[in-house]
């Protein structure tokens, strides 16, 4: 009886994982296909990768996606962190209101935000293009940064800032040398969230861009209207980058901690 249920649960997990990963696997496999077919694997080739690199339009889109993600992350991290610190110091009524208001853009369907921003830019006569896309990304990334930084700021011991000032640090030095280092985990989480939100955004970007500026999502959307394995090649590269980033993100801290433990132990033995 027990054994049977264990077999069942194992099968269930396998099915789940297949469901998650088969589409990705298919994409990766067919990016190496020698023919244009998406159903029949005719042989290994790097044809689509060479085509991808030589395709000016796709490379431009990669540049737009990456640069927007970097700039939007940087700007929204600074904005969100400062806002979170300011909120923690303000009166309860204001703080609670700001927190609820901050949740609206997160809960709001992207399409509503997208149309809202589009109308805003049009009514203000701002020419749509790279700048409007960047502004829109900053707008929807900042609430995520606030949400991830704010709890860290709240749990910060007030006396840490007092201690820094007591030791001669000006308010700005206190911010840079004590408050920011103390809330680093929250800021890192915010950066990660903002970057992923910005990098894979389609709906909002699609509505606020113009003048031929496209990011990866938009160009992929436009290309899917005809069969084009170049998309598979592009997707495979993105998957590979994410995989490497995840491995580095998980393995490096583990190694670092192990080394630190070893060092502390060695020092203790030496003492």
């Amino acid at each position, binding site marked *: 009886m027990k054994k049977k249920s264990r077999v069942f649960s194992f099968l269930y997990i396998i099915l789940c994982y297949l469901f998650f990963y088969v589409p990705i696997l298919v994409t990766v496999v067919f990016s190496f296909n020698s023919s244009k077919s998406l159903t029949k694997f005719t042989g290994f080739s790097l044809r689509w990768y060479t085509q991808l690199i030589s395709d000016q339009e796709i490379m431009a889109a990669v540049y737009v996606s990456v640069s927007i993600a970097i700039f939007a992350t940087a700007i929204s991290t600074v904005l969100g962190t400062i806002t979170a610190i300011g909120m923690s110091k303000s009166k309860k009524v204001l703080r609670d209101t700001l927190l609820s208001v901050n949740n609206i853009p997160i809960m709001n369907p992207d399409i509503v935000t997208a149309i809202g921003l589009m109308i805003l830019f049009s009514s203000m006569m701002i020419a749509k293009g790279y700048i409007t896309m960047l502004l829109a990304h900053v707008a929807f990334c900042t609430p995520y940064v606030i949400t991830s930084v704010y709890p860290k700021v709240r749990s910060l011991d007030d*006396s*840490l800032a*007092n201690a820094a*000032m007591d*030791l*001669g640090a000006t308010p700005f030095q206190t911010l840079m040398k004590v408050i920011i280092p103390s809330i*680093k985990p929250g800021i890192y989480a915010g950066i990660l969230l903002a970057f992923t939100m910005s990098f894979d955004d389609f709906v909002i970007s699609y509505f606020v861009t113009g003048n031929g500026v496209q990011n990866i999502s938009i160009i992929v959307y436009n290309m899917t209207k005809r069969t084009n394995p170049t998309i598979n090649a592009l997707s495979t590269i993105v998957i590979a980058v994410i995989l490497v980033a995840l491995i580095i993100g998980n393995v490096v801290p583990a190694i670092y901690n192990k080394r630190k433990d070893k060092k502390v132990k060695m020092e203790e033995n030496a003492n």
Partner: protein
Amino acid sequence: MADMGNCIIELKGITKTFDDQQVLRGIDLNIYENEFLTLLGPSGCGKTTILRIIAGFIEADGGELLFNGIDISKVPPYKREVNTVFQKYALFPFLNVYDNVAFGLNIKKVDKTIVDQKVKKTLKLVGLEGFDKRDVTLLSGGQQQRVAIARALVNEPKVLLLDEPLGALDAKLRKEMQVELKKIQQEVGITFIFVTHDQEEALSMSDTVVVMNEGKIQQIGTPVDIYNEPENRFVANFIGESNIIGGNMIRDCLVRFDDVDFPCVDKGFKENEEIEVVLRPEDIDIVEPEKGQLVGEVTNVVFKGVHYEIMVETDKRQYKIHTTDIQEVGTKVGLCVDPDLIHVMYTMEY
């Protein structure tokens, strides 16, 4: 007693209100160079508020705060020549022991070799030699405490403020740190302002004790004065144990309470003035019933380690007595007090 120099900090009529609640009701206090001064009182009496006003974290509503004769009430905390040891240490968790201690000097852009010398010297002073690279979050409470003291002392402040720094330590470690803190204070020769609610801590470490209650100073004096000559009922009750009895001053050196006249050494009261008498439990002697000034019956005996706590019921009240001689419950005993151990004080206004 340390030899005290000039007045370094002067508080004149300091008041402070938080949310309609008056926390400080006019504090006048002079703090001298090299003094170990303790602010003692129950929680909520305003002692920490005074410390925070001196450090500059909060501003007083009224009154003057003078540092070497100059008003500093508008000077921000980072420009004041005082340093604080916080209640929960407030060490920077992302810095190691060395960098925590060096923080203040690095902010002031002191030359690296001088920083190194000073940090090493201060760590040695607090007994943490060789702990430089340790993670502060992995230290014990006592060690974190020492780092906090070193971090403040390394800046060579004129005044060190300590906000209940021993509160989080266990009883034994606390005793050790009391001795050590006193030693450090004598070694560096600077003013310590120490906040505590622990009367024993206050009495054993301080040159001057300031007893506070409800935002007011009740008494300022040496530990001996505070214990032997409490000025009012609050001080007598808060510091040590006492029997407090209402009575009348018949004339100089004669006080009447419980319908008995006792010779005493207090003078200068009005004739027949209503007063209160403090009798410390250890100052009452148990004698034969016929030799006693008061007569009563032993109702309860509790062993307290060094002494017994004996309750004696007279026809007027219960007396608490500390003695090393055991008594049987139910025995008739006489009570005697030496004239110089009777302390007469004015009745409290409220």
